[in-house]
């Protein structure tokens, strides 16, 4: 049994990673037909390049916008829906429905909603947010990234909701009752019982959402194409690597190096979260 898992892990994860690291050593010509081995300097050059640094900042800010908002919304909705009320099942279905929505579908929905000419959101809120109509959130360099973040938060809400709802089921009812008997109100029960008992789920969601944010490609491709130009204010690292107008599209060495760097950055973010929240996460009852 273990052998099969190791084979699969080797074939689908370890081998591609090793090959990518090796390929990142290459520096190729414009057509990608001739490559030479430059050692680890390619990684250094890519990391220090202005384009990578800009893309890193975009990815970072996307994570800053999507992770806390996604967590707060997901936890909030899950707690609200964790009641024994008639008809609550309908709301649970609605809140979790985005888990079945692909990135492409979610992005297209938001693309239409935010269209200055026909978008419902543009029509409804343009008095308060003029940029909705002119030039449109996705076309304004200052608002394009938050608009992409909005689509991403919406798309991952269902996953967050389901994981947190599952976590809530494992919180012993007697903990709430004991806190209630001791005089704790709703907010204190939430902070002293719900949040600590949900901490493993919250850490899990935080790591997943952060990784997802760093790997955002589909939303950018469909909503903004990495623009608006010339700032390229929504070009994330994956879009820098694989986007339609990628400046490194022909250089497999640079692409591999950037991808490996993205992997390492994601790893660092995950480790920081694990170490940072270690003492606040409680496992087991």
């Amino acid at each position, binding site marked *: 049994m273990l052998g099969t898992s190791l084979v699969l892990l080797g074939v689908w994860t370890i081998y591609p990673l090793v090959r990518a690291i090796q390929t990142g050593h290459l520096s190729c010509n414009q057509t990608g037909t001739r490559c030479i081995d430059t050692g680890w300097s390619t990684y250094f050059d890519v990391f220090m390049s202005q384009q990578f640094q800009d893309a890193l900042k975009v990815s970072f800010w996307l994570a800053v916008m999507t992770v806390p908002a996604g967590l707060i919304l997901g936890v909030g909705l899950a707690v609200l829906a964790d009641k024994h009320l008639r008809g609550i099942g309908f709301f649970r279905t609605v809140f979790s429905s985005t888990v079945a929505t692909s990135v492409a579908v979610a992005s297209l929905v938001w693309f239409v909603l935010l269209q200055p000419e026909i978008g419902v959101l543009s029509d409804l809120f343009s008095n308060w947010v003029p940029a909705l109509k002119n030039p449109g959130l996705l076309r304004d360099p200052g608002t394009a990234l938050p608009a992409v973040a909005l689509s991403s938060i919406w798309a991952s809400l269902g996953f967050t909701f389901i994981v947190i709802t599952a976590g809530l089921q494992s919180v012993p009812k007697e903990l709430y009752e004991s806190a209630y008997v001791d*005089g704790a109100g709703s907010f204190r029960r939430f902070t002293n019982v719900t949040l600590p008992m949900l901490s493993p789920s919250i850490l899990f969601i935080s790591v997943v959402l952060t990784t997802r944010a760093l790997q955002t490609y589909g939303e950018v491709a469909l909503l903004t194409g990495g623009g608006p130009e010339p700032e390229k204010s929504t070009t994330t690292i994956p879009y820098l690597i694989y986007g339609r107008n990628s400046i490194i599209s022909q250089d497999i060495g640079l692409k591999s190096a950037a991808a490996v760097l993205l992997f390492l950055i994601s790893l660092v973010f995950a480790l920081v979260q694990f170490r940072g929240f270690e003492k606040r996460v*409680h496992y087991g009852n």
Partner: protein
Amino acid sequence: MAYGAAVAQVRLEQVTKTFGEGADEVTAVDHVSLDVRDHEFMILLGPSGCGKSTLLRMVAGLEDPTGGDVFIGDRRVNDVEPKLRDIAMVFQSYALYPHKTVAANIEFPLKVRGVDKAERAAQALKAADVLGLTDYMKRKPGQLSGGQRQRVALARAIVRDPAVFLMDEPLSNLDAKLRGDTRAELVELHRRLDSTFIYVTHDQVEAMTMGSRVAILNGGRLEQVGTPQDVYDHPASAFVAQFIGTPPMNLLQPGQMGSSDVQVGIRPEHLLIAADGALEGTVRQIEHLGHEVLLLTESPTGRLTARVAPHADLPVVGDTVRFDVADGHLHRFDAVTGVRVP
């Protein structure tokens, strides 16, 4: 220590609790009236599903009565929140906050009340000292044994200085030996605190050894309230007669040793082997318990269990034995209702 200085009486008047509606309605507690006196250690005893925990939860304020009234002292508390009822509750699973230390768990009720940090720590230490927990204050519940966790739950209740302690089967998660040791500790704690305890259990040994009075429930109804010896010697119904006592009371067929509308009950220790005894049975099994022997016999009219002293001339399996009944130890119950009759 001045814990338990303000004691109270708990009074339940025709308390009823139903769940569900219409055809799905279930009556968990059915018109129960009960007085718990000051300083009393009242046991709520009964089989699973009899409504004892539901009754306790209504005293705590975790369930609202469907009917009837709950009084703590002179105050009707039906609509009063648990935190204002001057009660503390120990749950079956202890309900300790796993992410908090022992000290933080004990301090929690005080923190909710707004007691300042230094005072909280001092009171928590006092409560921990009562229960021998001072060496464990910095540990978390996951690092404690079952008995230690149970004491933390008790300390958290004590620190509230309540008028009434409510305990919902707090010993059921402990092993048999620890349960025995902790029973004695709880009785001693009740004596030290001099408070009112209401204690739920399905274990008759706990009920008989700990309680000053026992309230026996069955199917949501109160069967009998009395001292442990009283309910043992004078069971109010066939249910109580068979629930209290191990082995249970022998219940004869209606008409055996009396009229056909009466069912006679005899405790195993009151069946005496006699050559001309009125009752007869064939020995099917003999259980040697060291200090006594149980004879399990069968006859066409039913089974009889007798408790006899260990001696040389015991019958063997297959022997026919006759029994007499010790004077004054026949119990009579209505064959239909099960209620005790004179």
